[in-house]
């Protein structure tokens, strides 16, 4: 772990919407190659931070560095091309296209050949565990769990170095969450990505992450290993009202 370079560095990022401060001088560093957690109560700014990193929002203050390169305020597709992929909190349904076509669109980032992208799509779908029978189905015909897996596959098909998962476990039943956690671990092992998981559900994040960042009301209030975070009084106070599983 020592000597690993920071693949992502967020430096003093602030963002406000009208009178509401969503992010207040957030700074953090993520080292290459691990799984990290970003937690915090509702409205603490987790998704806003993701959006600032991936170019959907432009921070009012501060910079974002990916692999040493300043990506602050770049267009989302440019950032994606540099190697940052993400999934979305509200599952983005691709109702009228087939599962395989959605993932092929992801694969086309790195190749212009449809057949190449097709192979990448098949590999990725197998990696995340979507059954072959599902590949030809339309988005409107698959279950929520399947959607999440396909979303994940689509993001991985772009061959990213950093993967941001935004509340990917939301809406899933406990056994589905376990399956998803397994998939994420497998993806991490086989692809050597750095993954940041934003989550609400504590158990999910705790079991996966090597290090966790805690946001509260737009500020970073703690960072550390799962054990350190679980016993941190500031964190417990921020979470009063939310049950750690």
């Amino acid at each position: 772990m020592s000597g690993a370079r920071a693949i992502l560095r967020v430096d003093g990022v602030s963002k406000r919407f009208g009178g509401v401060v969503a992010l207040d001088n957030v700074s953090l560093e993520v080292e290459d190659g691990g799984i990290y957690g970003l937690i915090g109560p509702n409205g603490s700014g987790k998704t806003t931070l993701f959006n600032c990193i991936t170019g959907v929002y432009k921070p009012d203050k501060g910079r974002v560095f990916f692999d040493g390169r300043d990506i602050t305020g770049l267009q989302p597709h440019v950032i994606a091309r540099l190697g940052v992929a993400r999934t979305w909190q509200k599952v983005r349904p691709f109702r009228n296209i087939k599962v395989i076509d959605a993932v092929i669109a992801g694969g086309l980032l790195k190749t212009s050949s449809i057949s190449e992208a097709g192979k990448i799509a098949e590999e990725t779908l197998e990696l995340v565990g979507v059954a072959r029978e599902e590949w030809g189905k339309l988005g409107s015909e698959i279950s929520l769990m399947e959607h999440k897996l396909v979303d994940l596959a689509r993001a991985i098909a772009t061959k990213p170095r950093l993967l941001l998962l935004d509340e990917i476990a939301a809406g899933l039943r406990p056994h589905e969450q376990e399956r998803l956690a397994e998939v994420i671990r497998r993806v991490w092992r086989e692809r050597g990505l750095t993954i940041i998981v934003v989550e609400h559900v504590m158990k999910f994040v705790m079991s996966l992450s090597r290090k966790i960042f805690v946001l509260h009301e737009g500020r970073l209030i703690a960072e550390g290993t799962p054990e350190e975070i679980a016993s941190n009084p500031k964190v417990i106070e921020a979470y009063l009202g939310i049950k750690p599983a």
Partner: protein
Amino acid sequence: MELFNREILLALAIFEILVLGLGFALSGNSYLMLLAAQVLLFAVFVATWNIIGGLTGQLDLASSAYMALGGITTSLLWMRLGVPPLLGVFAGGAVAMGLAVLIGLPTFRFGVKEVWYALMTASLVVILNNLFRYTMGPWDFYLPSKWGLIYLRPRTYFELFLIIDVVLVIVILVNVYISNSKIGYYLRSIREDELASESIGIDTRSYKLRALAIYSFITGAAGFLQIVIYSSFSYRLFDTSLAISIAIMGIIGGLGSISGSIASAVIFRTLGEYLRSSLGGVFPGLDLLLYGIMLIIVGVLKPEGLAGLFNQVRRWLGK
């Protein structure tokens, strides 16, 4: 999946046989032959609209503006400068494309809601209608009495029908090519979800502009053929109801489906013509009313359109 696989070529061949058969059957009756040519041209515009509407999911309501702009450019180049329309249509397409892209550039920026494009395009037709009426006057301008392939003005309606058929085949092939290539995958992804598309590295604005350029160029070029059918043009060619009708056919057919677009265009345009000729005196706009009602029904009950219906029947038969 190869670009042009055997299934598609077979379907195209069968379609062509039917079209040509129809053409030969009607070649004796000039009213019906002209009607067939008009319906087929309408299908050309709907199938072209499929590129921006069906594949990319942008509700473009300006096809009659591009058609008129391109067609009038081509006509004026012929009438004022003697440029034969066979060449002039490319200029017509370019002018239409230029205006379309000018509108698309600010409107397709990431984050701008889709309604503004629909609004800009719908208003464009009205504005150009007023502008042309003001600058050109309310009169009809007739095409010169010169015939020949080089003027894209054949002596018989049957030959016109064939020319339009050739254009339709080209449009079908363009659609198939786009659909099965990288740009097609990207456009469909944009249609389904722009935000997610940006996240997988698609420059949504650039691809939307590409689709717009192709669609507006072809529409502008083919616009001259509409003027040939009328033998004249006026400010009335900038027709909002026509633009809306084309979009409606594209949606009823099923977004992204070439066969659906052509089927709905042919069926409803023919039906509409029947309504117009039989009841048009009593109730003008009855055909348009029918299109509007169909759109509401499809939108509320079956957004996948005719293509969705085909697929359901096919799956049901497969059982």
